[in-house]
């Protein structure tokens, strides 16, 4: 049983992690690299003249200072494949999704021990629940962080993130396999509790990355994760069903 669970998780995790990393390279990485230039100060969000920020967009037609906003040679910073950095991203993406896959397979096995059948379609629903638990619901309190954004203490955020993920998993189980109104009530409570408690936020906003870039980054990262988890759930469910049909 151990071998089969792990094999299914690694197989589904490999495929999902690979799809995620390809999407990431195409749609997320360019934004990340651009944001890092703002984080490092190579690019700056507002034109600065003599240390003062210029917010007057009406004067954009006049001569710009030398260090003004993105120009063509800055718009696409080093987009070439960096073997070490991007190679590690490929490895870790697969590694993380294989880890998610193992959590998912352990969940399937638990569900089956309670008499619930797992099919690829149910697997897809599990995948979407995983996406909600590990990405969507935590991002309701802690937005996906682009480099160069202000944030609260790392430990506090990690604790809140972890608590939200666990609470959402519990809620997803109660919604998926609940049998009476109390289960659903508990699910709503588990879903809401971390957000009523509130995520740790920075006292002030001082991130140098433009909000346009940050919000596009967050949206793309979320959709990428949703696709990844959908593939993961579908494949893991498929693997599970085939394995049990034998």
């Amino acid at each position, binding site marked *: *049983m*151990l071998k089969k*669970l*792990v094999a299914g*998780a690694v197989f589904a995790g490999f495929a999902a992690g690979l799809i*995620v990393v390809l999407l*990431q390279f195409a749609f*997320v*990485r360019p934004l*990340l690299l651009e944001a890092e230039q703002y984080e490092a100060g190579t690019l700056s969000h507002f034109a600065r003249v003599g240390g003062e920020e210029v917010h007057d967009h009406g004067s954009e037609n006049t001569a710009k200072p030398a260090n003004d906003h993105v120009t063509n040679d800055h718009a696409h910073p080093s987009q070439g494949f960096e073997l070490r*950095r*991007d190679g*590690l*991203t490929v490895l*870790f*993406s697969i*590694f*993380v999704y*294989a*880890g*998610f*896959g*193992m*959590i*998912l*397979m*352990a*969940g399937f*096995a*638990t569900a089956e*021990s309670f008499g619930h059948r797992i099919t690829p379609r149910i697997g897809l629903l599990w995948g979407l629940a995983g996406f909600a638990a*590990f*990405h969507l619901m*935590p*991002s309701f309190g*802690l937005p*996906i*962080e*682009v*480099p160069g954004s202000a*944030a609260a203490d*790392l430990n506090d*955020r*990690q604790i809140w*993130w*972890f608590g939200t993920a666990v609470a959402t998993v519990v809620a997803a189980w109660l919604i998926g396999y609940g049998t009476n109104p109390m289960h659903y009530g508990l699910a709503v409570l588990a879903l809401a509790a971390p957000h009523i408690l509130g995520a740790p936020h920075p006292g002030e906003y001082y991130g140098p990355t433009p909000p346009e870039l940050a919000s596009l980054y*967050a949206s793309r*990262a*979320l959709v*990428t*994760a949703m696709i990844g988890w959908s593939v993961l759930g579908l494949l893991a469910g498929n693997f599970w069903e085939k394995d049990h049909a034998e």
Partner: protein
Amino acid sequence: MNTTAKTANLAQTNIATIALVFLMGATMVFAAGFAQSATMHESAHDVRHAAGFPCH
């Protein structure tokens, strides 16, 4: 009685296996997403940012 014992034994094995697989997965996700050592942070940096794990 023999059958009952076997079933109980099987169920115990299953629970242990499920727990083991879950822990392996959780450890992998934790290592890649949460471990604060400089090496892990640097190596998994882009994945952390893209997955929405708290970073920095």
